[in-house]
């Protein structure tokens, strides 16, 4: 039963190799989808290219459904799968800062590595920026420490907070995504793009 390494069905030594292979898959798909182009990524916010919306939500939903169905068939033990914790204030403020970063540069760390791999110099500069940003964060950590740990809510799942089951939440997310896809395709027709 999965997850295979935490359940010691596969030896822990394989973990890094698996990470590498998964990374190859990740990078390959991202680049194939066009996430190596900052103009495509930023296009979502101007309506001319909603590839981010489609790929992102389809991906999240596929994995979400996958986990729920695997758990249903006893193929995976969800209690051993990492759920990232919720620190309310740092999540919001960190997200806002990242949002600004996104619209400024049109990249996020994962896509920038992809883009750098195919030779985009602006992506490489972005990565230099990431190093700087993390460095600044670490050096000014004493000032930020209180904010960093504020609003510790543990690791709740959204469906627990809403009082519904995971499956129902998944359905709601799917319906929301469907609506967004329709709006996205409408926007793409309304805001035509030039070749890039």
């Amino acid at each position, binding site marked *: 039963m999965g997850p295979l390494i935490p359940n010691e069905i596969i030896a822990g030594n394989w973990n890094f190799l698996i990470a590498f292979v998964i990374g190859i898959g990740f990078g390959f798909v991202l680049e194939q989808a066009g996430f190596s182009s900052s*103009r495509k990524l930023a296009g979502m916010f101007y309506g001319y290219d909603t590839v981010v919306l489609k790929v992102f939500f389809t991906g999240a939903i596929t994995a979400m459904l996958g986990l729920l169905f695997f758990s249903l068939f006893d193929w995976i033990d969800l209690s051993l799968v990492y759920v990232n914790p919720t620190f309310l204030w740092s999540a919001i403020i960190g997200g806002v800062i990242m949002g600004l970063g996104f619209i400024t540069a049109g990249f996020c760390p994962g896509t920038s590595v992809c883009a750098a791999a195919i030779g985009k110099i602006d992506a490489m500069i972005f990565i230099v920026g990431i190093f700087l940003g993390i460095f600044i964060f670490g050096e000014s950590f004493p000032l930020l420490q209180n904010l960093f740990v504020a609003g510790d809510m543990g690791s709740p799942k959204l469906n627990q907070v809403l009082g519904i089951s995971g499956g129902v939440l998944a359905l709601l997310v799917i319906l929301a995504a469907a609506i967004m896809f329709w709006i996205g395709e409408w926007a793409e027709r309304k805001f035509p793009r030039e070749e890039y």
Partner: protein
Amino acid sequence: MKTKYMNPYLAGFLLGFVLLMAFYFSGRGLGASGAVKDVLVFSMDKVAPTHTAENHYFGKYVADGANPLNNWLVYEMLGVVLGGFISGAIAGRLKLRIEHFPGISANRRLVFALIGGVLFGFGSQLGRGCTSGSALTGMAVLSLGGFITMAAIFGTAFAAAYFFKKNWIG
């Protein structure tokens, strides 16, 4: 240059599949900013070990002689580089260049790329993850923090889009 990208829904499905495999094999999802942090801490440790160890944020990654590069994310990122490269090679998109909206100069593009990187670097540490780690993976496991961070990132980008439109659509 005209180029052919994969159908977004197919790409999304494959992305979800890769993510699911990460959960199934390693019990964890994807990530990106963490790997950059690991490389940074590793370098800092080589250059100024005492300062790094004493830093409240970075110190824990070098505590007890631990190697910050010994991390799932670092190996995953190496794979991303290779995967992206292979995809670019197959699709004929390998080219050393600065991609930017024709209405602005290449230098302007680089300046904004750098600033954006700094913002993302800072924000990803505060938010405990970037779009891959916190938003994509977080949503897949239905984590509350994941949804919040995702909403914050995309909400802010939408809200601020107007002020940056000169860089993207003129």
